[in-house]
C-alpha cells in the first residue's frame, strides 16, 4: 500500500478517499468473537494440513469506529432517492417507504431459514400466496411465481416457460420479435433461453411498425414477442390489441416487460392487452429499494394455459388453510433459483401493495403520468421532443440535438445536472433517439421539485449557448471531475493492490 504512511490527519474526513485497505493497521480489529467453550483441538487434527489455508486473506484491519466512519464517509459521496430528485428513465426511482424496511426486518421474516419445517413458516407462505394473487390481479393474468431475482431473471424464466409450452405442443419455434426500443436485457434473455431475437422497427409515432411486424411474422417460426408497454419512449402502443392478435395467430406468445408498469397500475392490465407472460420489477413499480444496483425481484405472472410450466416449488393452499411448497410438477421448467426467491424484497412489495390498495395503486400511476407530462411540457421550448405531439405516459424521451450546434451533448447536460443536485435522466437510450434523455420523474416528486428539475434544464440550455465549455467540464462541484473510463477499460485495475510487488491490475 504505497501511501499507507502518508499522514491523512489534516484532511477533512469526507475528502479522505483512502480505501479501507489503505486505512488498515496490522493487528487492529473490530470483531470480538465468543470465547471457545469446546476442546481446543489443534486445527490440523480436524482438517488435514494440506487443506488448511497457508496465508490468511488480507482483509481490512480497522477498529469499529474507523469502519463506521469509512462507510459513512463513502455514503456522503453517493446519491439516492433520499438525496434528491432521481428522474432516471425506465428505472422508476420513487420514494422507498421506510415502513417496508421495518417490516422486512421482523424476526418472523428475516429470521427464517429456508429449510425450516413448513409448519413453522405458515405466515411467510401466506404472505407469498397473497402477493402472488395480488400481482395476478394487477397483471390481469392467472398465476404468479415469485422466484426470479430480478427483471432480467424474470425475462429468462418467462421465456423458458414459453419454450416449454411450445415444446409440449410438439413445436420448437425459434424467433422472438423485439422492438428496436427494447431494453438490452430482452435480446440477451432471448439468446439465453435458446431463441433468436428478431428486431422490429418503430414507426413514426414511436410504436411497433405494423407493416414491419407483418413482414416478420410472414417469415414464420414465431415463438413470441417481447414488448414493454408503455415502451421505452414512454408511449403506449396504440396497436397492442392488433399486435397480440397477429402474434397469437402465428402461434407465438406475448411477453410483457414490466419495467414500465408504473404507468398503468389499475389503468390497463397486460393480460387484457393480450399478453401471456408478465414480469414486474418490484424494485421499480413496487418501491423496493434499488440498493445501489440490487437486490430486486422479478416475479412473473402467466396465463392459465402456462401454469403447468412455472418453476418449482409452487405454493399450495390446502382446504384447511394450510400452506405448503409443492415440487411435484412434472411439466415445470425446473428451478430458476435456490429456495423461494428474494423473500425479503417481496415482503417490502407486499407491504407497499397492502398499504396502497386499489385506490392508492391507481393514484400512483395517475400521478406518475401527470408528473411526466408536466415536466415534458416544461421542457417543450428547451429541448427537442421527438414524440412531443403525443401524450406521454410515466416517462418521455427528449433529445439534446438542438444543443449540438453549441458543441454540447446529452452527456454534458447529464453531468451538469449533477452540479444542480438533480440526478440525470437515462442517457443515450432508447437507441433510436439521437442524444436521448429519458426522463421519469415518478409520482413521489412534489411540484416544486418538478419545477426545480425544469429550471435546472432551463439554466443548462442557456449555459449551452453562453458558456458551452462549462458544460463540457461539468461536473464542477463534486468530489471528482469526469472520470477517465477509457483508461479504466484499457488497463483494468479491478482490485486493490495490497503489496508493493503485486500487480494491482488484473
Amino acid at each position, binding site marked *: 500500500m504505497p501511501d499507507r504512511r502518508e499522514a491523512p490527519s489534516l484532511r477533512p474526513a469526507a475528502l479522505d478517499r483512502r480505501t479501507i485497505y489503505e486505512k488498515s493497521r496490522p493487528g487492529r480489529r473490530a470483531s470480538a468473537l465468543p470465547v471457545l467453550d*469446546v476442546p481446543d483441538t489443534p486445527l490440523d487434527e480436524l*482438517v488435514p494440513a494440506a487443506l488448511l489455508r497457508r496465508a*490468511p486473506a488480507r482483509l481490512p484491519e480497522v477498529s469499529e469506529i474507523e469502519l463506521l466512519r469509512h462507510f459513512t464517509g463513502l455514503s456522503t459521496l453517493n446519491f439516492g432517492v433520499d438525496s434528491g430528485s432521481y428522474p432516471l428513465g425506465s428505472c422508476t426511482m420513487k420514494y422507498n417507504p421506510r415502513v417496508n*424496511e421495518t417490516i422486512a426486518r421482523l424476526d418472523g421474516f428475516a429470521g427464517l431459514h429456508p429449510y425450516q419445517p413448513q409448519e413453522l413458516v*405458515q405466515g411467510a407462505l401466506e404472505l407469498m400466496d397473497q402477493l402472488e394473487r395480488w400481482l395476478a390481479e394487477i397483471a390481469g393474468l392467472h398465476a404468479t411465481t415469485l422466484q426470479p431475482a430480478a427483471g432480467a431473471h424474470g425475462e429468462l424464466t418467462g421465456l423458458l416457460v414459453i419454450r416449454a409450452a411450445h415444446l409440449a405442443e410438439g413445436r420448437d419455434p425459434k424467433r422472438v420479435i423485439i422492438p428496436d426500443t427494447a431494453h438490452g436485457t430482452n435480446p440477451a434473455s432471448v*439468446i*439465453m433461453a435458446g431463441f433468436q431475437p428478431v428486431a422490429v422497427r418503430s414507426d413514426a409515432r414511436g410504436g411497433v411498425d405494423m407493416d414491419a411486424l407483418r413482414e416478420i411474422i410472414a417469415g414464420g417460426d414465431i415463438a413470441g414477442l417481447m414488448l414493454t408497454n408503455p415502451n421505452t419512449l414512454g408511449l403506449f402502443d396504440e396497436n397492442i390489441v392488433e399486435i397480440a392478435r397477429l402474434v397469437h395467430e402465428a402461434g407465438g406468445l406475448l411477453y410483457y416487460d414490466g419495467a414500465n408498469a408504473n404507468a398503468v397500475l389499475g389503468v390497463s392490465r397486460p393480460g387484457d392487452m393480450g399478453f401471456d407472460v408478465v414480469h414486474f420489477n418490484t424494485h421499480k413499480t413496487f418501491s423496493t429499494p434499488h*440498493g445501489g444496483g440490487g437486490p430486486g425481484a422479478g416475479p412473473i405472472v402467466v396465463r392459465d394455459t402456462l401454469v403447468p410450466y412455472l418453476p418449482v416449488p409452487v405454493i399450495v393452499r390446502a382446504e384447511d388453510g394450510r400452506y405448503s411448497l409443492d415440487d411435484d410438477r412434472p411439466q415445470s421448467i425446473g428451478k430458476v433459483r435456490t*429456495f423461494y426467491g428474494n423473500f425479503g424484497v417481496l415482503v417490502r412489495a407486499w407491504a407497499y401493495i397492502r398499504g396502497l390498495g386499489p385506490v392508492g395503486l391507481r393514484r400512483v400511476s395517475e400521478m406518475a403520468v401527470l408528473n411526466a407530462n408536466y415536466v415534458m411540457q416544461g421542457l417543450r421550448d428547451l429541448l427537442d421532443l421527438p414524440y412531443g405531439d403525443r*401524450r406521454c405516459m410515466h416517462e418521455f424521451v427528449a433529445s439534446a440535438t438542438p444543443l449540438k450546434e453549441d458543441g454540447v451533448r446529452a452527456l454534458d447536460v447529464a453531468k451538469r445536472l449533477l452540479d444542480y443536485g438533480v440526478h440525470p435522466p437515462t442517457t443515450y437510450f432508447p437507441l433510436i433517439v439521437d442524444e436521448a434523455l429519458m426522463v421519469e420523474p415518478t409520482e413521489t416528486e412534489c411540484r416544486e421539485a418538478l419545477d426545480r428539475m425544469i429550471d435546472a434544464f432551463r439554466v443548462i440550455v442557456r449555459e449551452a449557448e453562453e458558456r458551452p465549455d462549462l458544460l463540457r467540464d461539468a461536473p464542477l462541484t463534486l468530489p471528482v471531475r469526469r472520470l477517465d473510463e477509457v483508461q479504466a477499460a484499457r488497463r483494468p485495475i479491478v482490485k486493490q493492490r495490497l503489496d508493493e510487488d503485486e500487480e494491482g491490475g488484473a
Partner: protein
Amino acid sequence: MTVTGYVPHSESDVREMLAAVGAATVDDLFTEIPEDVRRREPLELLAGLSEAEVVAEARRLAGRDTPATGLVSFLGAGIYDHYVPAVVETVVSRGEFLTAYTPYQPERSQGVLQTIFEYQTAICELTGMDVSNASMYDGGTALAEASILAGVQTRRGEIALSAGVHPEYRQVLETETAGYGPRPRTPGLRAGATSDLEALAAAVGEETAAVVVQQPNFFGALEDLEAVAAIAHEAGALFVVVADPISLGLLEAPGVAGADIVVGEAQALGNAMSFGGPGLGYMAVTHRLMRRLPGRLVGETVDLEGRRGFVLTLQTREQHIRREKATSNICSNHALNALAALVHLSWLGKEGLPELGALCARKAAYLRQRLLALPGVAAFTEGPVFREFAVRLPLPAAALVDALVPEGFLAGVPAGRVAAGFAGRLPKLPAGASDAPGPSGLDDVLLVAVTEKRTRAELDAFVAAVGGVLAKAGDADA
C-alpha cells in the same frame, strides 16, 4: 382513511398541473390507451391501510412463523445463521446507499463504486482469484453463469458436475442452461460423501467445458481440490469451485488449488437468512477469463485532475451495450448484499475470519463426535469437515426434526427434503445410499450445521435431546 400512494400533490396542485399539460381531467391523461383495454372498475384488491395497520397485519403474519433465530438452530445447507454485527445494519440502512440506483453516473456514485471495488478485492483475497464481479443473485445462478462462461470459453458442450454440489444449485443450472450453455453430467459420490474421483474422471472428455465441485460439499465433506483440478486441466476443461466464503478463513483458497472460476453463496456474510433470499451470489475468475465475466465490474481510474476515482468498467461485456451478443442477461445484481458482506468482512478483519472458522470447526467437531457416540447414529460424511456434517439416523431425519421442535431445537436439514424435490431429476445419488428408505435414498440422513452462535451448553442439551428421541423410538420398535 386517506390513501396517499406517497403522492405529495394537493387537489389544487393536480388541477393546476392538469391545466398546464392541457388535460381537463386525470382520465384525459390516458386517452392514448385504446378504450377496449382501458380499465374503469377498480382492481380487486384489499382496500388500502394506514401505516400502523400495515405494520399490524405484517406482525400478524410474522407471528405465525417461528423463526430459526428464536430456536437453537442447526440448519444450514447453503444458508447459515452466523452472527451479523450491528454496524452492518447501520451502514446498509443509510439512504445514500439503500436508495441509489446502479452507479451509471460515477461522479455522483463514488460511494457505492468504491465499496464495490473494496468488495471485489475482499472476494479475490478470500478465493485466491484475480477478478471478482460486483455480485450475482445467489449461489445457484452464479454456478449457472459459471457453466455458461466455461462453455463459451472452451466451445465445449458438457460439464462434469459432482453430485456433491448442492442439489438446488444443480437444478438451477439444469434449468437455466436448458436453452443455452453446456449440459451437465453428474457422477456420484463415494461412501463418506466425497466426490468419486474415478467416476468424475470417467465423466470428463473432449467435450467437457468444466469440472465442478463444491467445497465443503453439500454433505459437509472436504474435497481434494488439487486432484480435481488435475482431472479438469488434463482434459482442457476449466475447474470451477463452489466455495463457502466463511470456510475460506480456515481452508485453502480455491485459486491456490488451481480453480479457474470460484462461485458461491455469501449470504452468511452480513445478510439475514430471510427465508433464503436475498442472499449474495459471488463470482471470481482468473485474469485470463476477465473479459468473459458476467455482470458489473468496478475499476479504478483517474479524473480530469488526476485524482483517483472508480467507474463501472469493461461494460462492453454487458447486455445494455452488447444486447443479443452478450453472454449473460444480468442487470440488477445484489449490490446492497455485497456491501453488507464487505462491512461484515471488514469487521471480522484479517484475524477475525480465521478465528471464526476455527470456532465453527471445533464446535462442529465436538458436536459430531458426541452425536456419533449415540447408539444408532452413524457417520454419513466421513473424514474431515468444516462447520457442517451429515449423520445417518435410525429413523427418518424429518421425524427427528419434528420431534425436537417442541424442545426448542431445529435439529438440522433432512437431506431427503432437499433431494426429494428432485426425484427423477437428480441424475445420480451418492453411492452407498441406495439401501435407505424413501425415493431419494437419503431419508435417514440429517445435515447438521454449527455456527459460532451455538454454545457448548446448547450442544450438550441438543445431544441429550437427540438421545431422548432415539431412545423413545427404540422403545417403540421393541
